């Protein structure tokens, strides 16, 4: 097997055995990036030289007998909305095209400590708004399984990059499905952790009460490894939780006999493709074979989730993105002659269509006279949605649903129809509103394109997800399949 087809735990074992150095692994990946990146287009910035320096450092440390993290020397990629000190962080936006952060996000500090080797910053929908990465202001990223299809979004770059073997794992962010949906479309494991599990310090905010950083990996064990590294309390994020981080690898290779799994019927609503339904049903059967008790349940407030999401997320975004005004950093229209025209021109040109649409939606929802009818009502319904989950987790260890309504779609297929694009988030946004953790993993293929299932747990029960996901993964072969890229 080639290095760029291997997982982090496999490569780590090879390095520990002295069979390969971090530098060799890094060079192999850089070479692979050169070959496939022109067709995949997942990277906004490449950081090969920094990566090689870091890889050499890791090799020296290992040679001197230091005990290293399993992620030491592992090539990784980072979504371009996570602040990296000294490395351009654009959010795939014209507004931040030349913005270089002066500080590292909390997750970057954690990954640097662990010895991760960053090969590049990854493409996304502008400011994480979108489901196909077609909203990047720079270029579109292709799905490695079929280059005429989207990789999903908004973390299309991080998904495509791992799927194509350019990096071993990546970090994305998930506000309404932006990790899980592209993971599903690219045949990867993607986890949105519990709200508060991973510090958001340094993540350029889209919707503060929904955003979480999480990993894209080739298998469940790698997801557990990355989570052990990036999860945990950070005093700089007041919404991060002071809850101990378990050793997630302890949940692997466990028996799931007697585990109770609920399947909410509302997640199999109209619009879901038949082929996806049938693959998810086969997965349910597999869980039952493994000894889980699977029952259909009802979560009645699911029906309101999209409406609630499309009020709360734009409202928070309208305020979070107000700072991009041309005054301190980022794009500024230099032709403006007064402060008002500087604001309006800068923002009219600096933001793309989708971002402006959401800012306007959110501004409207927060306006005086509309606040009670929209934002406040949405928050009240959000509480009811959370209660749906609280009730479900009184009885069930996990919930199982589809992740996306179907496999990857063609470029342009949905971008002309925003409502169908929004509707495609139906299975994922509810999870962000409830703040619970959820993981997407492959459960089959339709015409060669991967399809994912979603496992959802109670807050801070990521371990339970890993346990079930690993058991299912060990009983199936989907995670072993890699896309064939013609280079």
């Amino acid at each position, binding site marked *: 097997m080639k290095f760029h087809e291997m997982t982090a735990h496999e490569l780590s074992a090879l390095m520990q055995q002295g069979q390969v150095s971090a530098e060799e692994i890094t060079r192999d990946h850089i070479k692979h990036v050169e070959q496939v990146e022109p067709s995949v287009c997942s990277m906004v910035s490449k950081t090969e030289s920094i990566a090689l320096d870091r890889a050499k450092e890791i090799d020296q440390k290992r040679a001197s007998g230091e005990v290293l993290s399993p992620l030491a020397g592992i090539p990784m990629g980072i979504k371009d909305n*996570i*602040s990296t000190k000294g490395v351009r962080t654009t959010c795939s936006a014209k507004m931040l095209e030349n913005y270089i952060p002066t500080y590292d996000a909390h997750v970057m500090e954690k990954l640097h400590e662990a010895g991760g080797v960053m090969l590049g910053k990854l493409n996304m929908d502008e400011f994480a708004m979108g489901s196909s990465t077609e909203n990047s202001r720079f270029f579109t990223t292709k799905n490695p399984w079929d280059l005429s299809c989207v990789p999903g979004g908004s973390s299309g770059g991080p998904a495509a990059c791992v799927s194509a073997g350019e990096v071993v794992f990546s970090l994305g962010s998930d506000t309404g499905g932006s990790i899980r949906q592209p993971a599903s479309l690219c045949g990867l494991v993607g986890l949105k952790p519990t709200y508060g599990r991973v510090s958001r310090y340094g993540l350029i905010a889209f919707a*503060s009460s929904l955003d979480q950083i999480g990993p894209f990996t080739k298998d469940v064990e790698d997801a557990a490894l990355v989570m052990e590294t990036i999860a945990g309390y950070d005093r*700089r994020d007041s919404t991060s939780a002071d809850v101990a981080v378990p050793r997630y690898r302890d949940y692997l290779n466990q028996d799931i006999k007697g585990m109770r799994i609920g399947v909410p019927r509302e997640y199999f609503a109209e619009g879901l493709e038949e082929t996806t339904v049938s693959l998810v049903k086969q997965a349910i059967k597999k869980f039952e074979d493994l000894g889980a008790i699977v029952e259909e349940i009802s979560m009645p407030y699911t029906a309101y989730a999209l409406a609630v999401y499309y009020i709360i997320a734009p409202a928070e975004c309208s*305020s979070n993105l*107000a700072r991009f005004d041309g005054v301190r950093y980022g794009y500024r229209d230099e032709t403006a002659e007064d402060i008002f025209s500087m604001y309006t021109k800068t923002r009219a040109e600096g933001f793309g269509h989708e971002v402006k649409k959401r800012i306007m939606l959110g501004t409207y929802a927060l306006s*005086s006279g509309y606040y009670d009818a929209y934002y406040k009502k949405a928050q009240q319904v959000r509480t009811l949605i959370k209660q749906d989950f609280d009730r479900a987790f009184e009885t069930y260890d996990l919930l199982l649903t589809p992740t996306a309504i179907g496999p990857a779609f063609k470029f342009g297929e949905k971008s002309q129809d925003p409502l169908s694009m929004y509707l495609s988030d139906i299975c994922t946004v509810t999870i962000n509103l409830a703040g619970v953790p959820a993981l997407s993993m492959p459960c089959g293929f339709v015409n060669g394109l991967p399809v994912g299932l979603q496992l959802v747990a109670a807050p801070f029960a990521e371990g339970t997800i890993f346990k079930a996901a690993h058991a299912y993964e060990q009983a199936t072969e989907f995670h072993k399949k890699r896309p064939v890229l013609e280079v």
Partner: protein
Amino acid sequence: MTQYEAVIGLEVHVELKTKTKIFCSCSTEFGKAPNSHVCPVCLGLPGVLPVLNKKVVEFGIRTGLALHADINRRNKFDRKNYYYPDLSKNFQTSQFDQPICEHGALTIDLENGEKKVIGITRAHMEEDAGKLVHNGNTISVSSGSLVDYNRVGVPLLEIVSEPDMRSAEEAKAYVDELKKIIQYIDVSDCKMEEGSLRVDANVSVRPIGQIDFGTRTETKNMNSFKALQRAIDYEIARQIETIESGGTIVQETRTWDDERGMTLSMRSKEEAHDYRYFPEPDLAPIVISEEWIEEVRRQLPELPQSRRSRLVLEDGLSLYDATVITDTLAMADFYDRVRMGIDDAKSIANLLMGDLSKSLNELGSSVDESNIDPAHVIELIRLMYDGTISGKIAKQVIPEMLKTGDMPKKIVEEKGLVQMSDEGALEAIVLSVLQENPQSVEDYKNGKDKAVGFLVGQVMKATKGKANPGLVNKLLKEKLSLN
């Protein structure tokens, strides 16, 4: 002619004197080089998050307790959204519908000796904005502006009164008392000129007897107590004149132009911002425990109103004296400590308000910053009581005491300032003064009593001020009546 009455409510912003800013660990120090007290958080760089400075909440609780307000056990921050370059995030993190304090009150002393209770609607925590320097008069006509973000994130407490005041004098008394309380509880310096105390005035007028309020205006930008009073008086007069001449008052924000002595329209109600308040998603709601409140309550000093009453009722001082003594916590505490050693409130008050304050002022110092302790003053008053020194000598001792920190007794001894009370010695001096000033003796005999004063002065001069004044008077009168 219709008689009008003014209705005034005030919004007071005080800058809290925490060491660090409200949401980051930058220093709050005033007057440093532009943009030297900034970090990613207060600059609002992409991806940063606020962390609440607990001291700000403590100061909020302390202020609430001092203003007899309810402390909301659960309160929260909201975002107030508007665009301005001095705001690094284009929203101000503030408190909207759940402030830390509500329903307080403060008592002011009116000129006629009555007391009046002014209601306090609420007090809430928020962050300050930065400072713009335009190379033109305003941002819209300037060719360029510079921004200093040092003040961004300095914690503020906005204290909103009920519309309970009826004149500029009452408004001034309210701000005066509020300032005093805040200085007593040590949460702010309240320097109006430095901007650590800012007052906006809501003013309306109505015919006396009318229950409904008239339309109000909000006036900003008063930089001194004097400006506050002038602006309110101007606004009252302007509104009455407008109504009398058949016009109507427009609800608007106005700005005080100190040079021209008038208020000017800034923006109308229609142009007012829609701040689109919503709960700050980056901060958890603030939960305040009973224990915390009790702990803060225990540390509260006795407040000005209560001190004044005590000094009047128990010590027998006049309201004026009591007010002057309690003007600052330092002086009030100093008085109390001297009072423990001397059982004569009036003498203490006279000395503290008179010669001591005068000497302190000359040094530009205050009682808590000076070299002396209450023990100095106790000893000084005792020296006057036992006749060792006169009040006149005390005037010489005080500056020396402030300069060196030496005890009064030591100064008196070293400088030979002990009062001359030896009757025989003084008699000789008195006789020689009378001999040298026959004209004054003649004047006295012709009924000019003032001549005694002159002769006393001559004796004091001859003794370098050390003669016991009572004894000199007695001896002079004896000798003059013999003549």
